[in-house]
Each structure stands twice: as structure tokens, then as C-alpha cells.
């Protein structure tokens, strides 16, 4: 059963195509009025899950409830959810107005009410001047907004978005992110957004579910996903990270004592890991600073650097041969060590995390 405040509840959903399992018992709760993102590499099952919510895929096992009502046996045209498709799927033979009105008329709205609603939604996406055009006469960004307007018009309980920004160029994509987020706040509808772009997920979402190989790896707000990943996959997939092989000495109360390469001791927060043995330490490149060789947690040799504009990326090699990258802000006061220099590395306390495999 679903508790109040939950828009969609996905319960132990399994999807098999013959011998291939696309979803291994996925469970998720999407709250009302939430911008929720399904993030993962291609083939992780995020689109399958979205299509299962929309009704385009039958689920093999499990339930999908919308405000408590089971959707599993409902065909797509009876589910009060609407989708913004990756390629927009605007009907090419209809004007913008007719596209947006399509869902309203099928739902049985009167023509008069429908026309009023179409005007309102087109205003929301700032396309009032293009109402009479055909989709083929619009730019990619405008088509994307028509697709959004068409899906929002029938006031769905939940809006599903299948990588809607992937067909836009970079500059436009960044502008549309903010717009999309603003529209979500304004309409108060829960958005379920599918993407493989971690930057998109981090900037727009209230909460993110990171998926891989048909399983949910972690669910949480962007900051938690980035700063407190629960396993190697999440740490590696979201942003850049250095993963160091370390020896775990003890884990107490979520804090671990580990032995770093080069045999210095270090204390850090730990995700659920075995109390002893080999472990992985994840450190973001921007959470490492350089210092004198003797004062560092790690000793490294500089192997090169890359200029990135806002940052300088430093490539180093540890005594045991492991390779790391470090980001130093590009300010005038930053003195870059030269290739071949031996330096000490200081890991920011609390920012390094011990992870399970």
C-alpha cells in the first residue's frame, strides 16, 4: 500500500525479455511534486522502467502504483501519465495547436475548454506565436517545448521524460534545464526524468536514482549521491573520482581506519563495508591538495598535467604504481609542480570515502 505523499510507487518490478532480464526487482517511491531522475548508462534499464510506468512495456512481475492505484493491467491510454519522448514524436501532419489539443480531446474535454487550456500551456512554454505552425517548421528547441506542452496539457498526475534534452545542442540544453525545472515547480507535477547525463541529473533533480544492470544502486538527493556514494559504481559514474586500493584496519560507527598505499594511516567515513581486508577509497580530484612530501597522506610523482580553463588537472603516480588525477583551481597563486617532481598529497578529511565493491 502507498503512503500519502507518494505519487508513484514501483514495487519489486521485474522485466524479462526471454532469457534477458532488464529489471531485477526494482523498487522506488517517487514523491508528489518531485523532480525525480533515473540516471544510468545505456542498457541499465532506466528507459525500460519509464516505459513500464507509461504502459508501453508489460512488467513480468511486480506492481506499479499511481497514488495507490495499480497500473499494471491498464493500457497506456488509460493511465493518467504523459510522456515527453526522446525524439518528441510530434504528429507531423498536425499544427502545434492540434498536437497540444490531441490529448485533451481524446480525454473528452469540450473544444472550448481545450482551446483555452492549449493557449495557457503554449504561454507557459512561450510558444504562443507558433500555434499555427507545423512541427517541421520549428527548431529543435521549439519542438522540444511543444512536446512538453502536449504532455502537460491534459494535467497528468505524473510527467515522464525520456532523455528529452539529448537531441539539443549543448548551449540550448543548459538553458532548457533551468526552464524545465522552473516549469516543474510551477505546475507542481511530479516529473520522472530519464538521462545518462550526470550533469543534467545533478543540476535539475530533487532526488536521483542511479541504476546499473537493471538494479537501483542508490537513491538520494544530488549532493548525497555525489558526496556519499554507496559503492564503486556510483562513485565512478557520477563525476570523476580516484579509487585507491587500501587495507581496512577497522570500521567503527561508520568511520574506518585504513592503511593507504605508502603505509600511512588515514581515517574516513565508510559506506557499508566489511570490517577488515581490502577496500576501495574514493577521493574526488578537487578534494585533494598538494603539500610537502613529508606532510602528505600520499607520496606521488607528477607525470603530467592538462589545462582545462577553470582548472588544471594534475596526473600523478603513487609509489605502488596507481594513477590519480587532481584538480587545482586556476588562480594566479597556484604554483603547478613540474613533471617529475615528487610531492605530497593531502586528502580532505571527510571527503574521502571507503566503498564496497
Amino acid at each position, binding site marked *: 500500500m502507498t503512503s500519502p505523499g507518494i505519487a508513484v510507487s514501483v514495487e519489486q518490478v521485474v522485466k524479462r525479455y526471454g532469457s534477458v532480464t532488464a529489471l531485477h526487482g526494482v523498487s522506488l517511491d517517487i514523491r508528489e511534486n518531485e523532480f525525480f531522475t533515473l540516471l544510468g548508462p545505456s542498457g541499465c534499464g532506466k528507459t525500460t522502467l519509464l516505459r513500464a510506468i*507509461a*504502459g*508501453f512495456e508489460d512488467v513480468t512481475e511486480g506492481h506499479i502504483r499511481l497514488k495507490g492505484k495499480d497500473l499494471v493491467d491498464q*493500457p*497506456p*491510454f*488509460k493511465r493518467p*501519465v*504523459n*510522456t515527453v*519522448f526522446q*525524439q518528441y*514524436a*510530434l*504528429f*507531423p*501532419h498536425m499544427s502545434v495547436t492540434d498536437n497540444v489539443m*490531441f*490529448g485533451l480531446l*481524446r*480525454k473528452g474535454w469540450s473544444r472550448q475548454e481545450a482551446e483555452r487550456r492549449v493557449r495557457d500551456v503554449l504561454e507557459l512554454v512561450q510558444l504562443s506565436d507558433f500555434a499555427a505552425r507545423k512541427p*517541421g517548421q520549428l527548431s529543435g528547441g521549439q519542438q522540444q517545448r511543444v512536446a512538453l506542452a*502536449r*504532455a502537460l496539457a*491534459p494535467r497528468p498526475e505524473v510527467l515522464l521524460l525520456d532523455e528529452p534534452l539529448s537531441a539539443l545542442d549543448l548551449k540550448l540544453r543548459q538553458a532548457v534545464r533551468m526552464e524545465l525545472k522552473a516549469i516543474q515547480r510551477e505546475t507542481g507535477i511530479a516529473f520522472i526524468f530519464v538521462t545518462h547525463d550526470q550533469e543534467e541529473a545533478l543540476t535539475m533533480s530533487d532526488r536521483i536514482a542511479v541504476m546499473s544492470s537493471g538494479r537501483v544502486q542508490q537513491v538520494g538527493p544530488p549532493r548525497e549521491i555525489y558526496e556519499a556514494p554507496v559503492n564503486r559504481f556510483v562513485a565512478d559514474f557520477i563525476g570523476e573520482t580516484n579509487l585507491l586500493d587500501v587495507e581496512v584496519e577497522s570500521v567503527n560507527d561508520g568511520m574506518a581506519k585504513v592503511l593507504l598505499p605508502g603505509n600511512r594511516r588515514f581515517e574516513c567515513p565508510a559506506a557499508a563495508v566489511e570490517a577488515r581486508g581490502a577496500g576501495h577509497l574514493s577521493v574526488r580530484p578537487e578534494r585533494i591538495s598538494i603539500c610537502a612530501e613529508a606532510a602528505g597522506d600520499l607520496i606521488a610523482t607528477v607525470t603530467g598535467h592538462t589545462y582545462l580553463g577553470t582548472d588544471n588537472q594534475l596526473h600523478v603516480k603513487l609509489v605502488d604504481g596507481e594513477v590519480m588525477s587532481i584538480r587545482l583551481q586556476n588562480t594566479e597563486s597556484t604554483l603547478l609542480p613540474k613533471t617529475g617532481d615528487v610531492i605530497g598529497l593531502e586528502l580532505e578529511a571527510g571527503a574521502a570515502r571507503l566503498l564496497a565493491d
Partner: protein
Amino acid sequence: MAASTNLRRFPGFLTVTIICLFVLYAPLIVVAVYSFNASTSITNWGGISLAWYVDVFTGPEAPKFQQAALNSIIIAVCASIVATIVATLAAVAMTRAGRFRGKTLSFALINLPLMVPEVVTAVASLVFFSAIGFTTGLTTILIAHTVFCIPFAYLPISARMQSIPDMYEQAAMDLYATPREAFKLVLLPLMTPGVLSGFLLAFIISLDDFLITNFVKGAGIETLPTAIFGSVKQGIKPNIMAISTLMLVVSVVFVSLSWLIGRMGQEKT
């Protein structure tokens, strides 16, 4: 773009091209030109005249040819409409039903009439109609035409269907359209150029058919091609050239329309 090959470099390219064009089109040009001949001879040029076109509509053979033309048009319209409907349904099934048992077999069966020698179909149809005791007449021509027109209508429709991604129907159903409404309001309008193109192609194929028609037609019933053939057996008269030229024009117009509509639809998506 890959660098295109300059065809002119092939030895004999020009000669072969000219021979092909000559063999294909010279007779047509001769027929078209001589249809405007003022002379009653089919070989001697006697000046330009529209007399034979007038003769086609008012001359002694006019009633025969008019009846034949009417038969041809009735058959072509009915056969191509039915064939287009069947071909449309077949194309939807073949492209939207996913994989099903016998899909390859169905595809082969739809397109088989294109591969079977026409005379075989003609003999088979005749044998079939007499075996079930069906009196030959307009109906038998109509049935035979409908059947062999299906693959011709199917080809452009199915080509069009394959270029329509199924996301449009999904979008329609996502927006509360039942499968029937999704077909009627979204898929069918998108298919229309292919359907029209298929219809026109089937129409012209039916209009032109001689062989099968000649086998399955009943006594006393003529279509334009069989009437022309019957008339030619008694010696070629210039009015035949006028009729042939008229048919040529109708065919060219229909085939061009079919091609243009098919292309227009493709540019839209």
C-alpha cells in the same frame, strides 16, 4: 559522400545507352507521331491532323472502344480500391505486429504474384474459375485484377510504413487515444502518401493488363487492351495509334503522380 564513379569512363557506355533508349522509346514516339497523321496509311506521312482522335470518339468503332474503356476503368477503379485496402492492412500487420510465425511466408505470399510468370497466373485463374463453375465475365476479370494488383499496391505502402517510427502511435496512446483512434488519427494520415501511391500504381497496372484479362474475360466482354488487340488482328489502323497514345498519356500521368506523391510524403518526415 563517397566519390561517385564517372559512368562515361566505361567503354561503350554511350553506344549501349543510345541503343537501349532507341529500342525502348522509338516505337512509342513513332506511334505518338503517327497518331497525328492526316493520311489513312500507317506508314506514309500526310500532314498533321487530329482526325484520328475525332475518329476514336465518333467513328464507326467508337461505341466498341468506349464500352471497352468503360469496362477497363470500372475494373481498374474497383480492383485497385480493394487491392489497396488489402495491401494497407497487410502492410500494417507486417510492420507493426513484430515477429510472428509465418512472417516470412506471409511476405513471400504477398509478393509472389510479382515473380510468377503472368501466363501461369492467367492459366491458373482460368482453370480455377472453370473448376468452381464460375461464369467468366466482368466479375472474373475483377477478381483476377484485384489479386494481382495487391503486390503492386503493397510495395509503396509498405515502404512508407517502414519509414514511420512506431513512436507516433505510442505518443497517441500516451495521450489517451485508443488503438483504433491512434490508427485513424495518426497512423493513417501519415501513411496516406504511400496509400495513394499504391492505389495509383495498382490502378495503372490493372488498366494496362492484357494477358490475364484475355484469359479470364467472358465472351463479348472487352477491356481496352483486349479491344485494341482484337482490332489490330484485322490490320493496324491509325485510330489504334490515337487510342494507344491516349493510354500512354494516362499511364505516364498516373505513374508520375504515384511517384510524386510517394516522394512528397517522404520529404515531410
